[in-house]
């Protein structure tokens, strides 16, 4: 462990792949679409293009030669530079979570990538290995785990207990698998994941078929009824084809994404794995989870399902992956999600005894102007749009929007609830899509209370918590009674009892 090492040479392949992906559009534009052009602009542009690609590729090679890493006791040491050398130390204790991603190319080459994320705003402060053999990734992860565990036992235990501590750390703690989607979950997910998007082309095809002058003239020419039957038969066939294609597509997508989905945990950490061919995994120390957020879009609420997200302080975007692995299986039934949290993160377990808002909150909410509606009405008045060639007066559309805004506010009022219990604070809000947020006092790094001009006479207040995350997470609840806000202040003032100081 003392020798500084270069990164795996295959890193170059992945950097090249990224380079090609980023440049391919410009390349196609220069060399394919304008292949015949002898214009000076294109000629020079091509040389510059090749120059840039060549230099970038060379810089990758240079970086590969000069960048090295070392695992020290307690920290990563990252070296770079040939003449002006720099060394960066990333202590293991600052690592918030670990992400692993295996793409198609990784799989083909028998590699994986791993990122150790710290809580710094800058992505630069996370430690990324773009390509390394899975065994090496395991070794890194285990080494850090072990170091962390040793650091902890050093703190808590005396020399006399050292032997037993060593014995413990040498045997890896048993992982418990808490959730693996079954066939039923897959079917549910397939129907939910894409079917609604797939309905759009179906509807469009229906509309365009009925509207198309072609069908219409044929109806006129060759016997009205038979043509109608003919047209409807076609529409039905197309619709059925589309629907089944959508479901199959949804199923394939679901299986690729969630086929080997797994949520597991041991005493220390939570592990989430997903993906069939392209796999991603995520692990976070339980004590580093900042908050848990439950999200329910209307469809999920009607079907009794919940999306759950663990909020941690590490940046979730460092690997460049678009998929958000911190969100747990999104098609889990609400009861199961609650049970799962109780199993893996009992400190964040939610209570059902939440207080609804007083009626005066609703009153205040209706007095508040809806900027969305005002601006939308202004735009409607000015542009007078007629969607699908159906003429609708602007005020009718505006009225429809107003009704939607009112329903959304009523729903939001009905959904909003809050509770403070022991060390946790939780609240729910949202009109169409609801959010339930649970966090611990110790994890709330700042609290803000606001009272606006409408809230003051009604004795209401807005509460904002700030949690460490990347980006910083501000979460608020509007129009709670001032007394409740006061209770929350008192609750927060007892924070000092929770924290351990250095």
């Amino acid at each position: 462990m003392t020798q500084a090492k270069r990164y795996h040479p295959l890193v170059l392949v992945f950097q090249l792949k990224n380079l090609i992906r980023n440049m391919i559009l410009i390349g196609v534009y220069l060399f394919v679409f304008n292949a015949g052009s002898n214009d000076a602009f294109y000629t020079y542009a091509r040389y510059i293009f090749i120059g840039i690609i060549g230099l970038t590729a060379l810089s990758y090679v240079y970086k590969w030669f000069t960048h090295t890493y070392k695992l020290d006791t307690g920290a990563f040491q990252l070296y770079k530079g040939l003449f002006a050398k720099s060394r960066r130390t990333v202590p293991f204790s600052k690592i918030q979570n670990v992400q692993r991603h295996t793409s198609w190319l990784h799989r083909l080459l028998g590699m994986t990538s791993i990122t150790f994320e710290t809580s710094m705003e800058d992505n630069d402060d996370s430690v990324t290995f773009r390509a390394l053999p899975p065994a090496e990734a395991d070794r890194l992860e285990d080494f850090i785990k072990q170091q962390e565990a040793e650091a902890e036992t050093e703190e808590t235990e005396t020399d006399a207990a050292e032997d037993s501590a060593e014995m413990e750390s040498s045997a890896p703690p048993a992982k418990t698998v808490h959730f693996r989607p079954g066939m039923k979950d897959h079917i549910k997910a397939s129907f939910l994941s894409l079917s609604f998007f797939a309905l759009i082309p179906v509807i469009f095809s229906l509309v365009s078929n009925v509207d198309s002058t072609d069908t219409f003239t044929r109806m006129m020419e060759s016997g009205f009824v038979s043509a109608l039957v003919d047209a409807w038969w076609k529409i039905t066939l197309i619709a059925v084809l589309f629907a089944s294609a959508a479901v199959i597509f949804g199923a394939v997508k679901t299986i690729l994404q969630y086929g080997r989905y797994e949520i597991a945990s041991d005493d220390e950490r939570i592990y989430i794995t997903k993906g069939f061919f392209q796999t991603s995994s995520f692990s976070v120390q339980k004590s580093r989870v900042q908050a848990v957020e439950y999200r329910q879009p209307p469809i999920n609420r009607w079907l009794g399902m919940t999306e759950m997200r663990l909020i941690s302080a590490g940046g979730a975007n460092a690997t460049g992956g678009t998929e958000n692995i911190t969100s747990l299986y999104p098609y889990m039934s609400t009861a199961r999600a609650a049970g799962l949290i109780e199993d893996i993160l009992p400190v964040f377990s939610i209570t059902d005894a939440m207080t609804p808002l007083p009626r005066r909150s609703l009153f205040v909410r209706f007095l508040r102007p809806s900027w969305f509606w005002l601006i939308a009405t202004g735009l409607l008045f000015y542009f007078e749009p007629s969607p699908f060639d159906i003429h609708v007066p602007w005020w009718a559309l505006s009225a429809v929007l107003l009704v939607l805004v009112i329903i959304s506010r009523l729903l939001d009022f009905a959904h909003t609830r809050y509770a403070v219990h022991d060390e946790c604070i939780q609240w729910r809000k949202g009109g169409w899509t609801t959010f339930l947020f649970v966090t611990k006092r110790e994890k709330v790094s700042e609290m803000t209370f606001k009272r606006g001009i409408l809230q003051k006479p009604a004795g209401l207040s807005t509460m904002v918590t700030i949690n460490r995350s990347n980006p910083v997470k501000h979460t608020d609840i509007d129009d709670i009674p001032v007394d409740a806000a006061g209770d929350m202040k008192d609750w927060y003032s007892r924070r000092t009892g929770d924290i351990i100081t250095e």
Partner: protein
Amino acid sequence: MESSLQQPERRLSKKAVRVWVITSIIEQFINVAVLGVLYYLDQRFSWPQWVNWILIGLVVLVVLSAVWSVFISPWLTYRVWRYDVNDEFLQLKRGAIREVHHIVPMTKIQSIATKQGPFLRKYGLLTLTIKTLNSEHEIPALPEDTAIDVRNLIARYAKIKEVEE
């Protein structure tokens, strides 16, 4: 455990009002100057009619904001601003129309700085800037010696860092 949070009581320096009035007046002069230049250009190059309307609108805005920022806002700001420091929390409360009350645990404070522009210096005042990992706060216009005291107090209390997990 008893709540350690009292409503914050400490106030800014009364002289702050004068500093704010002076800086607002200067700002308003700059605004008027900019408008004057625009009006001159408008006349000189006979810009289209709608530019006139926008200019008139801007004049109205400048007058309103001048009245607010010179005659009302400084006094209101002084009247409602409160702060407090104890060994556990820094509290800031401000805002006459929209009241905002920040509660920042001492252990989360990362750095604290003082700053002083020419007008603050003339009246012997200092502004404190307090940074945490996630946010930045200001206590504007404290008397110099108070500001130094508060700074040292925060620095002492904030020295204790909690174990970040």
